[in-house]
């Protein structure tokens, strides 16, 4: 009997998973999406660094609209997500989003005639497409940025960015590793919230 129930559950899981939607992304559509995001980022760079509040508002808007935050939260937490309550996950999500907005709104630098150029779009698997781009500046070597995109039914969203070969997701997961090791997700949330309060 138990075996039968197990089999039914297994078949049902396969059936449900097969309907979990990930939509294919057209390469041109992906490039246009990143061109739009790039323009939004340039608009943020044009705001003086002293006006941090305005930068944060615009960056938050961009982050909310163009990034798959739920997927990013889950990928960064990895195994630490297992067993976490809905409240903990929401609290982590809020603290993480605030952290990202604060970090990038202040670190993005200022606009000084940089050119944002889209190079290429490539499928890396059935789900994801990578848009390669670079930033050109007359007095600096080109800065390579790769954007990993996926559509889970929410429209095209960014799920990772790699700047000069360094991935945001991988780096953030490394950053949070010690807190998770010390006291799990709860400790990470406390550490992130106190970091946010400091900055």
């Amino acid at each position: 009997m138990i075996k039968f129930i197990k089999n039914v559950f297994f078949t049902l899981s396969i059936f449900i998973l097969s309907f979990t939607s990930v939509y294919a992304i057209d390469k041109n559509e992906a490039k246009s999406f990143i061109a739009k995001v790039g323009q939004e980022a340039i608009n943020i760079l044009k705001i003086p660094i002293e006006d941090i509040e305005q930068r944060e508002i615009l960056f938050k808007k961009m982050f909310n609209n163009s990034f798959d935050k739920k997927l990013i939260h889950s990928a960064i937490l990895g195994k630490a997500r297992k067993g976490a309550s809905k409240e903990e996950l929401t609290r982590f999500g809020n603290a993480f989003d605030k952290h990202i907005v604060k970090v990038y709104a202040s670190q993005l630098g200022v606009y000084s005639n940089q050119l944002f150029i889209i190079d290429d779009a490539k499928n890396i698997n059935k789900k994801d497409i990578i848009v390669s781009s670079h930033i050109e500046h007359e007095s600096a070597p080109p800065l390579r940025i790769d954007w990993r995109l996926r559509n889970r039914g929410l429209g095209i969203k960014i799920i990772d960015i790699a700047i000069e070969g360094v991935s945001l997701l991988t780096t953030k997961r490394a950053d949070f590793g010690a807190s998770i090791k010390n006291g799990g997700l709860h400790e990470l949330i406390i550490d992130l919230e106190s970091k946010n309060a400091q900055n």
Partner: protein
Amino acid sequence: MLFKKLKYIITLFLFSTIITGCASSPDTTGKQENDPFESVNREIFAFNDAADRYIIGPIAHTYRDVVPNPVRDSIRNFLLNLKQPLSAINATLQGDFIRGASAVGRFAINSTFGILGFFDAADYIGLQPVDEDVGQTFGAWGIESGPYLVLPLLGPSSTRDLVGKVGDWLIDPVGLYLIREDSENFLIATKATKAIDTRVELDGVIEGSRKNSLDPYAIIRTMYLQRREKQISNTEGFFKNDAGETSIYDIEIDVELDDSDL
């Protein structure tokens, strides 16, 4: 004599690192980060951090603030040009003959038309800078990075890259020429200037990780390892290299989410 001394120092350093490292357990490594000496690495990182806050950082900031941008660019060009012969050797050893020839061409053009390399004349004819070292050559030959190391004052490295640094020192034609000409002081001055210039370039990363990170050690470690992997593969992208392989540092992103996570 100098070789003997160097060998002694490296052996002593590796020995002490291994002994201390074995006594400690790895703490925060991801599955691809080989850091068995994490405890001792963290202590050296803390020492380097203090040295950077009070000595190296302020020197670099003064250099950045006092020396005008175009002059710093010229100095950077000059230092990069001095490295081209070493890069040419390494690119060739990696079987990349085009980039090897490109480095030779850059060195010839920039040392003459570029006035000793202060101006990047080769860039005008499309010869891109080549930056290769022995550590990258070992990597291209398939040698794994080995345990991650933090070197006193020199910062992040690995056992492969540490041996590579010694290799750079032994085969660098410019360095060997300067030593033969009794111009060690000039050689040391170029290395020191390069270190300060690199610190200026990395200012955003270092200050940013200090200010915004929960664990600056882990951030610098993963950035170093990801960057080295990219330098070795000589590909531009992170997510896939020319062979179509995903970076080993690419994390699992196929997490399962339920409907409420849409």
